[in-house]
C-alpha cells in the first residue's frame, strides 16, 4: 500500500502537466463533436504494432496485488494511525475507490466477517433486528464492503442507515468497515451530519506508482525488473533509488494522472502497455547495458492508445446503469432494474451496449456485472459531465 492510509480530506489528485490536461480536455471535446460524424469505435485499442506480453509473462511481471499483503499493510497503517491519535473512532471506516483491492484485502483479515443478508430491502425495525443478531459488540469484526448492504431504492436504505447510526454512536463494538468511494459519497449526501473520520489509501503519484509496480514485478524473491519506453529507451522501472544514474521517462506520472491515482486502473493500463520488444532495436541498444542484468521489458507510450468509451447511442438508461453499478460495486440484472427504475428488457438492452463497449463485464462466476478498470476513466468522466453525483477520487 504505497503512501499508506490518509484521512479522506487529505486525498489529492496526482499532479499532471498543464500540457497533458489541455490536450486531454480538447480531446474530450473533439470526441464529443465527432460523435455521429465519424464511425464509432468504443472498445479498447492499443494502436501500436509491438507484440504484447503473453498472459503468463504478464502474470509474472504485473500480477494482481496479493490481498493478504495488502491486508497486513492495512493493519499496520491502522495501528500507526491509532498510535498517532489519528483514529478517534472504535470502528474505522476505510473508503477506497473501485479496483483499489481494499474489499479483497479486508476479507483476508483475521476477524469475524460480516456478510449481507440475501435480501437487503427491509423495514427499519427489521434492519435493527438484523444488526442485533450480528452481535457487533461481541469480538472484532470486519465488514469488507458496505455497498453490499443496501440498494438505492426506498426500501433498501434501512440496513446501512441503522448500521451507520450505531457506528456514529460507537455502539458497534470493535470493527473495521470498507466502503466504496461511490457508496460513501451517496451516504454522506444522505446523512450530511455523519462524521466518521474515514481514512483512504493515499493516491498513487508517479513516484509511488513506480515503487508499487517494481514491488509487484519483483514478486516474493524481490528480483529486479527493468522496464523502458519502447520508443526512446527511457527508464520506467526499476524505481530510481539505487544510486545508478538513469534517464527516467514521465510515463509513471502520466499513468498516475490518467488513472487518477487509482491502483487498479493503473495496473490494468500498465498491463496493456507492456511489450516484449522496442520499436527500434538499434536506438535502444546503447542503453541496454545499463539495465543491470535483470529482466528487461518495454513499455509502449500512453498516447497511441484508445481506451473504451461510452457509446454515443447510450441514453439515460446506460448512465443510470453505470452509476448504479459503481454505487453498489456491482449488481445483478434484476437488481439493476430495481434501482434504476428501468424495465428489465430495457435494462438488458442498455447493459448489452455497455458490454459490447467493454465498459462493463460479468464479475467472476456470479451474476453481478461490474464496471471494468480500463473503462472506468471514461465512465467517471461521462457520469460527471451528465450531472451524476460522482466520488471525490
Amino acid at each position, binding site marked *: 500500500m504505497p503512501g499508506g492510509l490518509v484521512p479522506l480530506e487529505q486525498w489529492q489528485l496526482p499532479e499532471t502537466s498543464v500540457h497533458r490536461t489541455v490536450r486531454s480536455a480538447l480531446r474530450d*471535446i473533439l470526441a464529443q463533436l465527432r460523435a455521429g460524424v465519424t464511425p464509432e469505435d468504443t472498445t479498447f485499442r492499443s494502436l501500436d504494432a509491438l507484440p504484447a506480453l503473453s498472459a503468463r509473462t504478464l502474470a509474472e511481471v504485473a500480477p494482481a496485488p496479493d490481498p493478504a499483503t495488502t491486508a497486513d499493510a492495512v493493519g499496520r497503517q491502522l495501528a500507526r494511525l491509532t498510535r498517532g491519535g489519528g483514529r478517534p473512532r472504535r470502528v474505522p471506516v476505510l473508503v477506497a475507490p473501485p479496483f483499489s483491492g481494499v474489499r479483497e484485502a479486508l476479507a483476508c483479515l483475521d476477524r469475524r466477517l460480516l456478510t449481507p443478508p440475501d435480501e437487503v430491502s427491509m423495514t427499519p425495525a427489521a434492519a435493527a433486528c438484523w444488526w442485533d443478531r450480528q452481535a457487533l459488540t461481541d469480538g472484532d469484526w470486519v465488514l469488507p464492503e458496505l455497498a453490499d448492504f443496501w440498494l438505492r431504492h*426506498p426500501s433498501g436504505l434501512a440496513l446501512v442507515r441503522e448500521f451507520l447510526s450505531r457506528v456514529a454512536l460507537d455502539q458497534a463494538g470493535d470493527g473495521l468497515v470498507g466502503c466504496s468511494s461511490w457508496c460513501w459519497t451517496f451516504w454522506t449526501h444522505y446523512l450530511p451530519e455523519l462524521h466518521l473520520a474515514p481514512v483512504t489509501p493515499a493516491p498513487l503519484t508517479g513516484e509511488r506508482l513506480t515503487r508499487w509496480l517494481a514491488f509487484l514485478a519483483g514478486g516474493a524473491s524481490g528480483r529486479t525488473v527493468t522496464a523502458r519506453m519502447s520508443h526512446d529507451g527511457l527508464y520506467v522501472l526499476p524505481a530510481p533509488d539505487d544510486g545508478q544514474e538513469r534517464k527516467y521517462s514521465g510515463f509513471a506520472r502520466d499513468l498516475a494522472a490518467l488513472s487518477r491515482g487509482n491502483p487498479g486502473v493503473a495496473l490494468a493500463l500498465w498491463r496493456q502497455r507492456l511489450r516484449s520488444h522496442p520499436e527500434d532495436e538499434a536506438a535502444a541498444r546503447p542503453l541496454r547495458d545499463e539495465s543491470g542484468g535483470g529482466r528487461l521489458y518495454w513499455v509502449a507510450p500512453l498516447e497511441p492508445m484508445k481506451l473504451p468509451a461510452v457509446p454515443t447511442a447510450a441514453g439515460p438508461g446506460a448512465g443510470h446503469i453505470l452509476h448504479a453499478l459503481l454505487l453498489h460495486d456491482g449488481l445483478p440484472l434484476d437488481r439493476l432494474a430495481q434501482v434504476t427504475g428501468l424495465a428489465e428488457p430495457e435494462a438488458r438492452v442498455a447493459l448489452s451496449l455497455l458490454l459490447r463497449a467493454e465498459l462493463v463485464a460479468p464479475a467472476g462466476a456470479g451474476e453481478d456485472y461490474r464496471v471494468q478498470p480500463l473503462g472506468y476513466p471514461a465512465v467517471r468522466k461521462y457520469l460527471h459531465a*451528465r450531472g451524476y*453525483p460522482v466520488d471525490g477520487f
Partner: protein
Amino acid sequence: MDTRPVREALASITSQAILEALAVIVIAALLILLVQKLFPALAGKLSGKPRLYLLASVPLLRLLIILLTLLMVVPILVEPSFENMVAIFGALGLALGFALKDYANSLIAGIVTLYEMPYRLGDWIEVDGRYGEVRAIGARAAEIVTLDDTVVVIPHGVLWNALLANGNDGTDNLMCVADLYLEPDHDVAFLRARFRDAIFTCPLTRTYQPVQVVVSGCEWGLHYRLKAYPLEPRAQRRFISELTARAAAICEEAGVGMVAGPGLGYRPIHQGS
C-alpha cells in the same frame, strides 16, 4: 433641421463604395448566420460547462461581428471625419427614434441583455407566464421553447417592464418542485422521511444539491412540496413525473389519500385503504 451636412457627407458615396459596403454586410450576415446555426448545433453535442460556454458565446460573437461590420462599412461609404460621423449618426438616431422606435427599443434592450445577462442560451426562464428554455437570442428578440415544444418569441424590449424569472441562471442547476395535496390525517414526520428517501433514491436526482420536503396546510389538506435538482435541466419534466409517481406509491402504501389541486376543487382521487 439643417440637413446640409448629411447631404454633403452622403454626396461622396459612389456606386463602387455601395457595392463594397454591401459585400461586407453580406459576409457579416453570413458569418452571423453561421455562428447562430453552427454553435448551437455543436453545443447540442456537448454536455456540462463546455455546452453552456459555447451557447453563451453566440450573442457576444454576433455583437462583435456587427460592431466590426459598422467599423468597416462607415469608412467605405463616407470619409470618417468628426463632422461626417456626427451628421450620419445624428440622422440615423433621428430615423430610429421616430420610425423604428419599438424596434430600436428592442435592439438596445438586446445589447443591455448581453451586458446584464438576465438570461443566456440554455437558461430556463419565465416571462409573462411563459416558461421555457432559451434556444436563441437574436438582435431584437429571444426565442424560448416551452415544455410543450412551442416556440415563443420574446422581444428584448419586454424586459424593460416585465418580471423575469430565471430557473438556472447560466448554470445547469435547476430546482424542480413536485406538488402533492394530501388528506390531513396522517403521520407527517413519517411521510416526510419517506418522501426524502424517494427523492434520494430517484436515479435522476443530483444528491449533492439540497433536497427538501416542505409541508404546509391549505384548505384542501396538506400541501407537500418535494424540492430537488435533476441531473440536467432538460430532464425536469421526467424528474417531476418520477418524484410524483414515487410519492404517490408511498402514499398508497401508507394509506394516505391524495386530493386534487385547487383548480379542480376538493375532489378526492384516492381513498387510502
